[in-house]
């Protein structure tokens, strides 16, 4: 096989399998950094050897064996300076033959181990996100730093600290026990949800890298559904697919914000909506669903409506009622108020929004004020609408939203 063809082959194995190989190497070697070095050594060796020997029958097993061998070799060399490493190397060398450990189900378990370790609740929340994107998704540190608008050294340090804590605090490389699984899965789903939102909510700045984040979150969601098809994992994947299906229509060609009611529904991704709806139905049928499934069900009702007026608003209000019982929050209440305004008219919605604002909880939340402004505008209460749009403008930090609010204010000003 010609050398450049081998190189392409190695690259495609890397893309498809490097995270699986890493996950298994971490288990075999018991150390993140050692496993990462071993992974790179293994692929570097493949580039040298495969042109002569041809591609092995089981490239993944070959890479795991080679990586493990390289790591033990590396430890032996370092043992000249640190005697304790010799013992570690001997222990690793006498462990089970790794070829036995690359059976399909064992490999899939390793991927779950990696996810649960990166999302361990003993790690700080932002470190969980960074570590998951770096180790599970294989994103470069620079790319993650750009997406979260922080410097690469800051992010790298966050990852180093997390790995140190995993080692020193004894965070195990394991899938949680059945008793802990519901809580721990919630933690993993939350990380995936935050990654998705980070990629979805902002439409300005480094929009390309943010789109990549949403894509990674969906890939993670798919992986979880494949490995651990719990109802809320299905619900979260459905929710992400349904939101992402509208991505292209959420802003105009000139990067202006387009509201749900004004979006060109002909451009929504119908295949993705169908997949999302199927997932929601599966999750609902389990009767063990939670907040992600309910939010996905709401998104599904929107996705299936031909336009805003023909949307089944009573059903949406009903779903928000259930969601409030499962997860009471002022933001959910605010969304419910907007749905009530569509069902019963803006006056009914305004009464609810004012009730929420008077409790003070959302006083600094820009969307509460822009929702109030919109209802006042529809009721012809121009001066109240202007006041609320101005308050929202003071609070928002997103550029497209700022332009949207300024546009509304211009329309209302005489």
């Amino acid at each position, binding site marked *: 096989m010609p050398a450049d063809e081998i190189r392409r082959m190695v690259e495609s194995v890397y893309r498809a399998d490097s995270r699986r190989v890493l996950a298994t190497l971490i288990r075999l070697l018991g150390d993140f950094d050692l496993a990462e070095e071993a992974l790179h050594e293994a692929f570097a060796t493949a580039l040298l050897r495969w042109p002569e020997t041809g591609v092995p029958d089981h490239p993944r097993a070959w890479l795991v064996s080679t990586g493990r061998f390289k790591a033990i070799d590396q430890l032996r060399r370092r043992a000249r300076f640190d005697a*304790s490493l010799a013992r570690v190397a001997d222990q690793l060398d006498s462990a089970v033959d790794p070829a036995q450990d690359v059976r399909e189900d064992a490999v899939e378990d390793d991927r779950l181990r990696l996810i649960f370790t990166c999302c361990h609740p003993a790690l700080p929340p932002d470190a969980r996100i960074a570590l998951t994107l770096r180790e599970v998704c294989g994103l470069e540190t620079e790319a993650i730093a750009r997406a979260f608008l922080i410097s690469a050294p800051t992010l790298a340090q966050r990852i180093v600290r997390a790995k140190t804590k995993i080692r020193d*605090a*004894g*965070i*195990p490389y394991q899938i949680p026990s059945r008793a802990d699984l519901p809580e721990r899965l919630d933690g993993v789903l939350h990380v995936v949800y935050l990654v998705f939102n980070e990629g979805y909510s902002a439409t300005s700045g480094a929009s390309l890298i943010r789109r990549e984040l949403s894509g990674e979150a969906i890939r993670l969601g798919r992986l979880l559904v494949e490995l651990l098809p719990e109802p809320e994992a299905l619900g979260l994947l459905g929710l992400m697919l349904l939101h992402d299906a509208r991505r292209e229509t959420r802003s105009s060609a000139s990067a202006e914000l387009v509201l749900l009611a004004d979006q060109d529904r002909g451009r929504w991704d119908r295949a993705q909506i169908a997949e999302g709806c199927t997932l929601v139905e599966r999750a609902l049928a389990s009767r063990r669903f939670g907040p992600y499934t309910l939010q996905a069900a709401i998104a599904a009702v929107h996705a299936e409506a031909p336009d805003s007026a023909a949307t089944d608003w009573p059903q949406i209000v009903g779903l928000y009622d259930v969601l409030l019982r499962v997860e009471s929050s002022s933001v959910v209440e605010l969304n419910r108020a907007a749905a009530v305004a569509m069902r019963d008219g803006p006056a009914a919605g305004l009464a609810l929004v004012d009730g929420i604002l008077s409790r003070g909880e959302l006083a600094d939340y820009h969307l509460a004020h822009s929702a109030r402004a919109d209802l006042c505008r529809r009721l012809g209460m121009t001066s109240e609408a202007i006041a609320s749009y101005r308050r929202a403008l003071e609070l928002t930090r997103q550029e497209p939203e700022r332009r949207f609010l300024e546009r509304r204010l211009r329309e209302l000003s005489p």
Partner: protein
Amino acid sequence: MKYLCLIYEDEAAWGKMPKAEADTMMGEYFAYTADIKRSGHYLGGNALQPTQTASTVRVRKGKVSTTDGPFAETKEQLGGYYLIEAKDLNDAIQVAARIPSARAGSIEVRPIMEYNAG
């Protein structure tokens, strides 16, 4: 691995507790300690006298200074500890979660630093 489970709770609450309730709590502690001895987790543990019995010692420029306290303005104070042997952090968290004071106060779980002999 060895972990120290530091028990933080509102020590004033113990004083305000009716005797029957305090007795129940003590009973729970005895049962818990017996339980983690049976499971092999227990290495040691003690309850501490309240913070008004505490002294803080510092040596500065060779001179010993002793003050009373610490009386930091926190709602929870260190009231006791268990030293445990656990397989890993998940195991340690499960042991710590069963400490009776975890329900009202909080438990800080800290791995013990291991030094390589030789």
